[in-house]
């Protein structure tokens, strides 16, 4: 299943552990290109960090859809994300693509990260003075939103 390909953690991601694990797991699978994107929380707008809620059932189906799409091009996708609080300068998100061909991997990492931003069921909050403030202005309605209005 996807357990080693989609990993969720409480708090900041142990980046070296995750990326080393994936590299060791997949370097012998004849992927010529392994591209890793590591998202790091920036110190800006006086925040102490970010905090996240995740709705796992739909995240799993979103990720499974991407895995299928990647597999059609003989590639795989990998992802790790944090739940709860992640302080500035720590990582909350890693995405990766492994592919026999570099061009597939380079294009897919872009689409995978952008679609993640637009459609993965994860909610972000700024941590300001110890409180969680929903990052409403940076959030995007999921495709098809608004049917009940």
């Amino acid at each position, binding site marked *: 299943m996807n357990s080693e390909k989609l990993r969720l953690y409480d708090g900041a991601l142990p980046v070296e552990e995750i990326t080393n694990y994936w590299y060791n797991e997949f370097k012998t699978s004849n992927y010529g290109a392994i591209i890793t994107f590591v998202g790091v929380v920036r110190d800006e707008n006086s925040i102490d960090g970010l905090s996240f*809620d995740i709705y796992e059932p739909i995240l799993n*189906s979103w990720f499974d859809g991407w895995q299928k799409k990647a597999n059609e091009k003989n590639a795989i996708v990998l992802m790790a994300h944090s739940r709860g609080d992640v302080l500035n300068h720590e990582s909350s998100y890693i995405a990766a693509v492994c592919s026999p061909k570099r061009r597939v991997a380079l294009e897919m990492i872009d689409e995978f990260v952008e679609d993640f931003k637009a459609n993965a069921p994860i*909610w972000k909050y700024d941590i300001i003075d110890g409180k969680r403030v929903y990052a409403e202005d940076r*959030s995007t309605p*999921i495709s*098809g939103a*608004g*049917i*009940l209005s």
Partner: protein
Amino acid sequence: MVKIEFLGPINKESLSLDISNLNELSEVLKGDETITKWLENCAVAVNDTLVSSKDVKLNDGDKVSLLPPVCGG
């Protein structure tokens, strides 16, 4: 009964409603001032599958989730 859950920042307790489709749910929620402002930006899932139309029948024991705007990463 159908369970309605409000995810992420909506911060509202789940509801249990006697309804048979999403049109009825829409009418109920439009009358709830704690939720009306979210409706135009919320995606809807029935039993954890996103739906794109209100023409969805609901059965006893179904779960409807409202997903407000997202921002992972």
